[in-house]
């Protein structure tokens, strides 16, 4: 019988068995194109699978015994999946001999003849397999039908599995009737997901008033983000608004009155929050801002440097100030003196502060470049020297050090 099914290795020109192959090498014979994974309800390829997705009852025997489809309209009440328990238990016992023979001849692996499932055929379902033998099965332990959970179960009423309750948000039978925790969890996440999708749909239309483009149609993912002004509700893309706010003071704009202001209503905003969606209500905005703040609070402040640095924002810093044992703050209970900034005079200190604010806003790009590396190096060198007992401020000691 297997002789009538076309060999798939031969079809690829790769059958090593030649004359001895148990499958047909005649192009006229029909190939076995049935996906066995689908029959178990587990094909990961879905509609992209290159094998036929035939329901189990139709292709019952053809799946593994390789008989022709037209011959096997076997009607069975319980849906049985061949290949499963039989190959996993009996089949393995059968294989060792076959394997040694195959490996010796370096042949591709094929099911031994006669197929293992025929030896001892159990009318048990693959999915139910584990539960059959057990006596104490609570309903909560039973899995729900994955087809119904995905949207539609082709077996309908006749399905041997528990069909989940209908989720009102996603419209799928995916709520396990006997697992309340899971049910609640699903309802919560599903609701959240749904809201996010709605917001995303809403956000599609929104244009940035600076580049005049739709924010979510920008070419790169990094650009497809809104910049939420803390004090007003005008939409911009994050790159545009950051660009504007970080314009150099030399451009003639006043930092406090022009650059920090909304380009549209000129209301001053102290910070900008990046977000992938635009909000429709005050509460939504607050939620986005809060989660952003929470995210920032989980990151250690670079300026504070675990108690060794001086953060210009002090206690109102958005980032976490963790004091490490042995650090300056830990020892002296006050922040270390601010290191001199030779590039800036005291007059523009406010600008410098706001500049740093801008750096902090660029949370995603909170990288080592944030700190002026040259600055840090000289400062660290100084620290090192002072630890070694050298006085870097005294030039004569420098000379002594050299000679």
């Amino acid at each position, binding site marked *: 019988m297997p002789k009538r099914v076309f060999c798939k290795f031969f079809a690829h020109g790769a059958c090593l068995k030649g004359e001895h192959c148990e499958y047909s090498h005649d192009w006229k014979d029909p190939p076995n194109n049935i996906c066995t994974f689908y029959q178990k309800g587990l094909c990961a390829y879905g509609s992209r699978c290159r094998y036929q997705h035939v329901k189990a009852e139709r292709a019952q025997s053809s799946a593994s015994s390789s008989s022709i489809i037209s011959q096997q309209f076997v009607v069975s009440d319980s849906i049985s999946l061949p290949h499963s328990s039989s190959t996993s238990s009996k089949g393995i016992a059968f294989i060792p001999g076959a394997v040694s023979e195959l490996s010796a001849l370096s042949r591709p692996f094929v099911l031994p003849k006669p197929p293992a499932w025929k030896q001892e055929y159990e009318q048990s379902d693959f999915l139910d397999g584990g539960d059959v033998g057990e006596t104490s099965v609570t309903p909560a332990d039973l899995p729900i039908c994955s087809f119904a959970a995905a949207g539609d179960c082709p077996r309908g009423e006749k399905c041997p599995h528990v069909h989940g309750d209908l989720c009102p948000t996603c419209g799928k039978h995916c709520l396990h009737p006997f697992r309340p925790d899971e049910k609640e969890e699903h309802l919560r996440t599903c609701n959240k997901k749904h809201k996010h999708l709605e917001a995303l749909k809403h956000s599609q239309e929104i244009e940035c008033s600076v580049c005049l483009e739709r924010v979510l149609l920008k070419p790169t993912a990094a650009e497809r983000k809104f910049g939420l002004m803390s004090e007003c509700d005008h939409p911009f893309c994050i790159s545009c608004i950051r660009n504007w706010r970080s314009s150099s003071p030399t451009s003639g704009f006043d930092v406090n009155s*022009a650059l920090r202001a909304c380009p549209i209503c*000129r209301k001053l905003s102290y910070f900008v929050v990046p977000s992938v969606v635009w909000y429709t209500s005050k509460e939504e905005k607050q939620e986005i801002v809060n989660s952003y703040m929470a995210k920032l609070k989980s990151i250690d402040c670079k300026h504070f440097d675990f108690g060794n640095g001086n953060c210009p924002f002090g206690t109102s810093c958005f980032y976490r100030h963790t004091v490490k044992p042995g650090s300056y703050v830990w020892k002296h209970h006050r922040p270390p003196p601010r290191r001199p900034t030779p590039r800036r005079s005291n007059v523009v200190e406010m600008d410098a502060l706001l500049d740093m604010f801008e750096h902090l806003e660029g949370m995603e790009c909170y990288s080592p470049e944030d700190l002026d590396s040259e600055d840090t190096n000289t400062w660290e060198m100084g620290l090192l020297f002072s630890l070694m007992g050298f006085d870097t401020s005294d030039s004569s000691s420098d000379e002594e050090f050299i000679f």
Partner: protein
Amino acid sequence: MMDFARVQKELQECSKDIEGSGIRVTPKTDATLARLVGTIPGPIGTPYEGGTFQIDINLPDGYPFEPPKMQFATKVWHPNISSQSGAICLDILKDQWSPALTLKTALLSVQALLSAPQPDDPQDAVVAQQYLKDYQTFVGTARYWTESFAKISSLGVEEKVQKLVEMGFPEALVRGTLESVGGDENLALEKLCSG
């Protein structure tokens, strides 16, 4: 680096509403979008009524984060516009610029400036003095300047159109080109021939 996509969009937006606002923005040359010419009609009820004023626009590299540089190409008698250079004294073109403003809104502001002079913050002291001390003379001079400089292009336009049409160019194209070069017949001919 300048955002040419935005400039392109602004030009499209502006050409859509040419009937409503009367404001026109066209590239000076085909080579670049950084040099443009804006045209605004003189506001009705002012000495500038009936005139068409041309403004040279230079877009800096930082546009739209830096304001466009605008200067009257047409001579204007106005306290806030230099009668010599055409420099405009307008806050939104300087420190009050916002990236949400566009060329069109900036030109609208310039048009509004024509109808509401600010002699206390003058660009041209002579004009401002005249505006404050002898308003009648100011109106007369402004009107005279409008007649002599802002209307030249429209004088004899029909003749020029006829001439160019006779050379074999379609009339609509001729009118458009003439308008874009400010009524200069030779420039129009050059432009028609090149493209």
